[in-house]
């Protein structure tokens, strides 16, 4: 079936089974590998993307749900040469260990800050408790988000549309 959706600002039309999880469309049809497969059941958050601005678990969201909607992935948030403030904070705080969960962590954090630019510690912890990190980088994740909130990450000026 033909399906249209917007991914990172670009309109895409694809032939795909409508029950295919959005994750596999993003990864294998669109070639955006930054969004990760962890559990297939919405339990780990490695596959988190924004669908019309809301964080969703793309591993358990049928692509049909994204028809005519707008998807933002980690690649749409920032790039190596133009980092999103959260990505900049992640690098400055040396957050990633194996790194596999971090796209999802950053996407969850980005959604939080869009809706609450000055979250308390509890808000950050609550917003990120759906994202598992097997390496145990949680304390650095909190520190990195807080550095963006209090402006202590260098050039923490927030980008538009992020």
């Amino acid at each position, binding site marked *: 079936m033909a399906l249209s959706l917007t991914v990172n600002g670009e309109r895409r039309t694809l032939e795909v*089974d409508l*029950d*295919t*999880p959005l994750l*596999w469309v993003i*990864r*294998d049809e669109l*070639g*955006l*590998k*930054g*969004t*990760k*497969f*962890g*559990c*297939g*059941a919405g*339990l*780990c958050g*490695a596959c988190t993307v924004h669908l019309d601005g809301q964080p969703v678990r793309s591993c358990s969201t049928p692509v049909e749900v994204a028809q005519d909607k707008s998807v933002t*992935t*980690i*690649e749409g948030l*920032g*790039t*190596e040469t133009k*980092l999103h403030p959260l*990505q900049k904070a*992640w*690098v*400055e705080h*040396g*957050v*990633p*260990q*194996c*790194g*596999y*969960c*971090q*796209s999802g962590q*950053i996407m969850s954090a980005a959604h939080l800050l869009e809706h609450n630019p000055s979250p308390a510690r509890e808000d950050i*912890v*609550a917003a*990120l*408790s*759906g*994202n*598992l*990190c*097997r*390496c*145990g*980088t*949680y*304390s*650095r*994740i*909190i520190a990195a988000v807080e550095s963006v909130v209090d402006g202590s990450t260098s050039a923490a000026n927030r980008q538009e549309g992020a």
Partner: protein
Amino acid sequence: MRMNRRDFLKVSAGSSGSLVLALSLPGCASIETGYEEEDGSWRPDAWLELTTGGAVYFTLARVEMGQGTYTGLTTLIAEELEVDPASITPTFAPVAAEYRNPLYKLQLTGGSTSLATSWEPLRQAGAEAREMLILAAARVWGVNHRECTAFEGQVRHPNGADALPYGKLVKLAASEEVRHDVALKPRDQWRYIGKNRGRLDATAKSTGTAEYGIDVELPGMVYAVVTRPPRYGARVKSFNGADIETMPGVLSVIEIERGVAIVASKYWLARKAQQQLIVEWNNDDAVTLSTADVFALYHHAADEDAGERERSDGSFSEAAENAERVVEASYEQPYLAHATLEPMNATAWYRDNAMEVWAPTQAPDLGRIAAARVSDLSPGDVTINTTFLGGGFGRRLTQDYIEEAAAVAYRIRKPVKVIWSREEDTRHDLFRPAMLHRMKASVSGKTVTGWHHQVVGPQVLDWYVRNAAPAQYPWSPKFLYNTLGKVGLLAEGIATPKDISAIEGAIDYPYDIANVEVRHTHTDPGVPITWWRSVGYSHNGFAAETFMDELAHETGADPYEFRRGLIRNQPRHLAVLDKVAAMADWQGGAPSGRARGLALFQSFGTFVAQIIEASIEHGNIVVHKVWCAVDCGQVVNPEIVRDQIEGGIIFGLTAALHGEITLVDGEVQQSNFHDYMLMRNYERPEVLVNIAESSEAPTGIGEPGVPPVFPALGNALFALTGKRQRALPLNAEVG
């Protein structure tokens, strides 16, 4: 030594884009050094490649799975080469003899050995290359090379004004004599070692551009999923392949040794087809035990067989005879899964009588053996491309997932990626072994006179040697592989190191007690096992340091003072113990409603003491704070050390609070993160880490944070409730 070009058969593109040539002798691949005119690149050794364009490539032979080799090992070579580590491009090593881990004679990353075994050779390699560049520059200028210096990728003229960048010198440097007597930089001249300079892979891992095994994409690639027997050891009897082959997107359904593979054009179509697959299994050789049977087997074995004596100081039996009393306790630990966040996966392509594999693996040379086993190829025909690993923890030392991809690729002759679901990853893991420990101590008055530790359970090498032994002799004919595996075990200590996986942390009991006996009753229930972040130390640490706490209680001593009195002759143990007690203000005690537990444990050469503060709230164990004092010798990157310790503590707490794989009639009961839970952000305690200043050689850091967690938390719960925790996972309702 430069090899003749005709000696080389295999040419493959290195990830740097330049050519890496491998020797034709299968399994004896060797990295060619010297200057390559065509690419304008110079390889002074197996690790470095410098180009006329000024690029520096570093071949990383210890894989990056989160533990920080990408940054740490690059820092070592950068320090001596005199370049900024951030200007170096690390590439993942192909399989070659030069890249073997000297401790295991295999190319594997594990045992918290990467930094310790690279510390001298990588700095030496960097220093030799630097010296050759200096010699070349001195020759250009006609000055004494001793008066030239290297700094930030340049050689400086003695006049202080002129300089030549390395890129301009590589061709000349290649013809300089290699000197092996170059002195390493003294500690006070280090510019990068011991400094916090961030992680070199942080940007790629924060922007989604780091390539993991699961991200590999090849032209015309198809996908496969594998249905494996629910009971380990079962075989395929029959399956409805014809029905499945008619399903949308399905290209073929094939039986492989490990189960039934469905190959489809897309991953999701393979998964959908798999739901309709019906396999009948032959369970004749299958594991049919339940968890209770495993422990019954262990207890029975422990009664029947006192076990191999692995350590004996003085005479425990005499001490027990002469003592006022003998204290006994036994401890049980469950099977544990690894739960790397990136599930097992591998991509393989069989063509032109060769196989190429892309995989997140901790042991690429074992991956070659696994691929060769299931095809008509020899290991030398198999190329393994290693990617970033989305977690390892020992799981990816076993190459079953490469074996599957290779078996499918060999049959279909197309590039194919096999991805495991989370449920498959959990159920078909090879587990941290379940173990039983029987402890005895002889006590007179307030003095412990003897210590007896009987470890009961399997050892990992029995399971690992199947691919490991052939990997040490990759030129041996394939029909000898199984024999080699058996010989490898028999010749323990020659072909393979002695397997101490069951007893590590027990045989090195550090306390000053005159009569110490450690025994291993070797019994294997047949459930697949492998290494798991700190392995034997994880279960022996729980048994030994909980029993120490029991003895402190038995003799009416404070747990800290008790240990302190018995560790006076071990200065590094004593130092971390005193440090952690000071950090936590041990004497001050815990706030009301909470309690603290202590553990002191050495593993992988590193000394760790922990104090954990916990409470029980609404029937749940809540961990509030962890204090941790560490001595791992010279620190190369303080932030990575801190991260590894904190990550190890979270890893340990995950297992202590939640970790348990159970079997019913041989079938694993857990499947995904709802029933095999990982610690989440909101459960995270505050972690305070202190790293000792030391100029001792660096020791392991990836694993040593894990073992003390179990006893420290269990001892805290005892202090809180008066009830002793003798089984894992810990239980708020133990009574």
